[in-house]
């Protein structure tokens, strides 16, 4: 029986890889069933399930919140979005990033967050310097 390699990867981790009899996903233009020797195809995915029929007839199900499906002669690749993506949400994220920068620009006073350890180290450096001087004095 012919099979096709199937890789499902998310941006932050690998989700699935193995041989499949058929891969079923929800494309932008409708449900897709990819069997071995499918023509090369690339499409965006809609949020939904990706089902993989394994060699032994078992079926594995994955939820993707969007992504890209690519079909090559030997391999089906699903690039899954882990994040929930929509045009509006992306727009909001961009706006937030911009506001973040603007706020920082407006707030000229150094709002640098200094970890406590950093303060302690600064103190230590000053102390070390004082010690150096003390040592020099003692030598004379």
């Amino acid at each position, binding site marked *: 029986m012919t099979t096709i390699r199937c890789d499902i990867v998310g941006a932050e981790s690998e989700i699935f890889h193995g041989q499949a009899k058929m891969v079923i996903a929800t494309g932008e233009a409708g449900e897709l069933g990819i069997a071995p020797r499918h023509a090369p195809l690339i499409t965006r995915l809609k949020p939904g399930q990706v089902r993989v029929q394994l060699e032994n007839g078992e079926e594995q199900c994955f939820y993707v919140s969007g992504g890209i499906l690519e079909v090559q002669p030997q391999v089906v690749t699903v690039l899954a979005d882990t994040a929930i*993506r929509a045009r509006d949400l992306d727009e909001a994220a961009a706006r937030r990033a911009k506001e973040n*920068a603007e706020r*920082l620009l407006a707030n000229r006073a150094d709002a640098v*967050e200094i970890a406590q350890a*950093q303060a302690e180290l600064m103190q*230590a450096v000053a102390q070390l310097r004082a010690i150096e001087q003390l*040592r020099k004095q003692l030598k004379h």
Partner: protein
Amino acid sequence: MAGAREIRTKIKSVANTRKVTRALEMVSASKIRKAQDLMRASRPYARAMRQVAGHVARANTEFKHPFLTEREQVKRVGYIIVSTDRGLCGGLNSNLFRKLLGEIREWHDKGVEVDIVAIGSKANVFFRRLKVNLVGSATHLGEKPKIEQLIGVIKIMLDGYSTGKIDRLTLAYNDFVNTMTQKPTLDQLLPLPPSDTLATAHDWDYLYEPDAESVLGHVLTRYIESLVYQSTLENLASEHAARMVAMKSAGDNAKKAIDSLTLVYNKVRQAAITQEISEIVGGAAAV
């Protein structure tokens, strides 16, 4: 004896410093592992993404996406700068910023303006003091950066490129070579350099659903996002490695200071004892 007591207090405080640096060193040593795991986990996606982008860039002949075409005139350039949120990591950030400053100056000399997006507070603090245009920032990504946290800043730059506001986009980060070495790296993102998209030539084309233009745009956007995400993880691993090394050398220095202080302390103490004895002997002789 007053001198001796002073020195003893100093020794104690340096010993405390040493404890702090050692603690920080050990914390970084454990975090670096996790950062490396994250890097490894996200690699399959980056690899798959690169393949798909490579295929796409080569496969389609009738449509050329703007992300792939070089522009003749460059009036404004964009930089995405990945830095750390915290300090105490040696010269990690300053090395990267120094490299960038050289480039920015070159652009300014040519009369080209520079837009900057800062990831990490250090870049934020550093670049807002300069005469550059800070258009976006993302800070406090934590130990486990999520791609959601970066979407916004990347979109600002990609939109800028599509609308013609910027004509080139570069990514700056510290490449994690190994624990001892982190390399400040500048990668051109847009237009995608041909070496990145160079795959074996195809004489076939994809079936596109719904159409070539939108799918291509989508793929390339995701590709760039994955590059930026990957570089953030690299930078995170670099941060911990650099901090570990910096704290180690700080600890070593503290140890050296303690040693030499102990020597001085012993000498002072001995001198006091000698003086006391000679005073007693002198006194006894006088009686």
